[in-house]
């Protein structure tokens, strides 16, 4: 008998004569305590993200490319990994061209194996979109894709994410209702820059992932 058969047979025999408990879920318990108005959603996400060392900037309509460009200049960052095939990637590269921004834009346009060293050692910042935000916990929902692969939000020391205020959900339960079906190969919830408290419970940021996370929240113009 294979391990699989052995385990399943043992579990089945232990359940003989029992009735499965089905549908124990009560959505109000995970939804009701975490409801907000549209304005509260933005302020709460900002507050919680800031509390875990994330940096949040509110911006309107088409002003975000300038804000992004200014933030990078302030930090003296001269290279940015973007996804040129996405709408936000195109908007930003067009902005840089028009404004003669000397920023070097990099694209994640080949398999990781072909440029792993460069990504690990030579990319100071990345810029991605988000699928949604979650107000209750101060969270970004990020869906890696061929345009914005998994490591884009992980390896560079600075991750900048664009979030539309209208995409902020009250809580995880509500956000889940709109997730893609079937689930994508990878879906991430990101709530701040990487951190650890493994030494004496002293909080240190930049454990293995980004040391800094900047969120640009775009409100309707």
């Amino acid at each position: 008998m294979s391990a699989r058969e052995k385990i399943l047979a043992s579990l089945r025999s232990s359940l003989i004569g029992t009735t499965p408990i089905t549908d124990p879920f009560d959505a109000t318990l995970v939804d009701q305590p975490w409801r907000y108005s549209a304005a509260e959603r933005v302020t709460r996400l900002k507050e919680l993200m800031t509390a875990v060392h994330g940096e949040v900037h509110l911006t309107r309509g088409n002003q975000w490319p300038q804000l992004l460009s200014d933030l990078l200049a302030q930090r003296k960052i001269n290279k940015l990994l973007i996804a040129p095939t996405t709408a936000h990637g195109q908007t930003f590269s067009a902005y840089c061209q028009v404004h003669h921004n000397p920023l070097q834009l990099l694209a994640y346009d080949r398999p990781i194996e072909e440029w792993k060293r460069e990504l690990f050692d030579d990319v100071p910042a990345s810029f991605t979109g988000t699928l949604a935000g979650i107000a209750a916990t101060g969270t970004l929902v990020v869906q890696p894709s061929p345009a914005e692969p998994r490591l884009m939000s992980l390896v560079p020391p600075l991750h900048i994410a664009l979030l539309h205020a209208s995409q902020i959900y009250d809580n995880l339960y509500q956000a889940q209702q709109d997730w893609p079906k079937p689930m994508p190969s990878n879906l991430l919830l990101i709530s701040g820059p990487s951190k650890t408290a493994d030494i004496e419970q002293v909080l240190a940021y930049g454990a293995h992932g980004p040391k800094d996370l900047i969120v640009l929240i775009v409100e309707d113009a």
Partner: protein
Amino acid sequence: MNSQRIHAVDITARSIKANSRLSLKDQQLRNNMRSAMDSLISKRIISMPDEGERENLRELGNKVRASALSQLPDLLELLEANLIKQGIQVHWASTTEEANAIVLEIAKARNATQVIKGKSMVSEEMAMNEHLTEHGIEALESDMGEYIIQLDNEKPTHIIMPAIHKNAEQVGRLFEHRLALPYTDDVDSLIQSARGILREKFFHADIGISGVNFAVAETGTLLLVENEGNGRMSTTVPPVHIAVTGIEKVVANLQDTVPLLSLLTRSALGQGITTYVNMISAPRQPGELDGPEEVHLVLLDNGRSQAFADSELRQTLNCIRCGACMNHCPVYTRIGGQAYGTVYPGPIGKIISPHLLGLENTPDHPSASSLCGACGEVCPVKIPIPALLRRLREENVKSPSQQPQIMDGQGSRYSAKERLLWKGWQYFNSVPLLYKTGTFMATRFGGLTPKNLGPWTQHHSAPKPAARSLHELAKAHLEKKS
């Protein structure tokens, strides 16, 4: 690791009694544990200020887990079918030996020489690092806490905070000796040094290994929770990802993870959510530019089906591994995690380890508790830990031959002499004449009680019978009234 560390507590010994005597004398350990546990206790309660919300959610958490367990074999099959459909390979292991063999086989097929590990308690259960090392494969921990204790040849002291028994100075000295870094006790610098070293390891690793927090049957999703990003690194950078988990970690659907996730991170760390929640449903797809080419899931039994067989003991498998029971345990806080000599310490360790290792190997674990009840009160999925400890004590003193055999190692504390003594005690208390005579003698000649009563008087003063029995006093009282 070239030189073996000399442990204050021999972690290979499972004698919790002997280990405790040693660790209680370690004042540094006691200080480190006390301050860490106090801080975790207050963080948890600050993150759950609304009692109504908290208690309702615990109730829901309990129901969601109980429901999953009530259909466990079906959910495991559904999980397996969905994972396979999505390209994730599923392996089953009854024992840790089988699980290690599966991992080794995958590693050999890839000619792997370096493995990087995210945090996984099941891999600790398997002693996977030792197994891989024996076969010439480097297995390196990448969770900061796990990395620290691996450098010091230690085992985790806590399931969430493996190195919580060490202070910054001790970590600084360790890095100085083992990594030849200049000494510092600045936590930021220590973390940045480790980050630099481990980034190179992620870069070169052939295989990444992780645990699983929740396996979602309906969508075929492995959900991993972490703050550091090492879990994401381990499951994304190397070309192969192997997840190892216990068979009980499955839940029916995605919405079930909502209450469990909130309970887990708040109970464990007082965080509303961890920095990363990583949901993996497939290996790298055509067109995708990163992510592992191969993803494997190893489902491990290792005694869990034994706990599952008994409807009361089954509740042990509700556990979502938050560690709140140990943070609140007066015994754990004083003796530290290593004194348990088992992978899972603290109250949850005392009720799960007997199933993983057999009661004969953990005979004192069910008794190493004051039954104060704190663990049961904070458990996010309402495992009645004190009741299960009491139940294990019962299994522990049953006659080894008594049927049905519920557990391996049943009756490891059975003593015919003790059993006879209790039979006598029962008889004494159920025959009125004998009881009356006995209590009369005891009250009148109580002064003759010896000062030394064997093991009892090692830690207690000798019992001194009162001058009159309660029966006599009550009778006198009633007579006076009437």
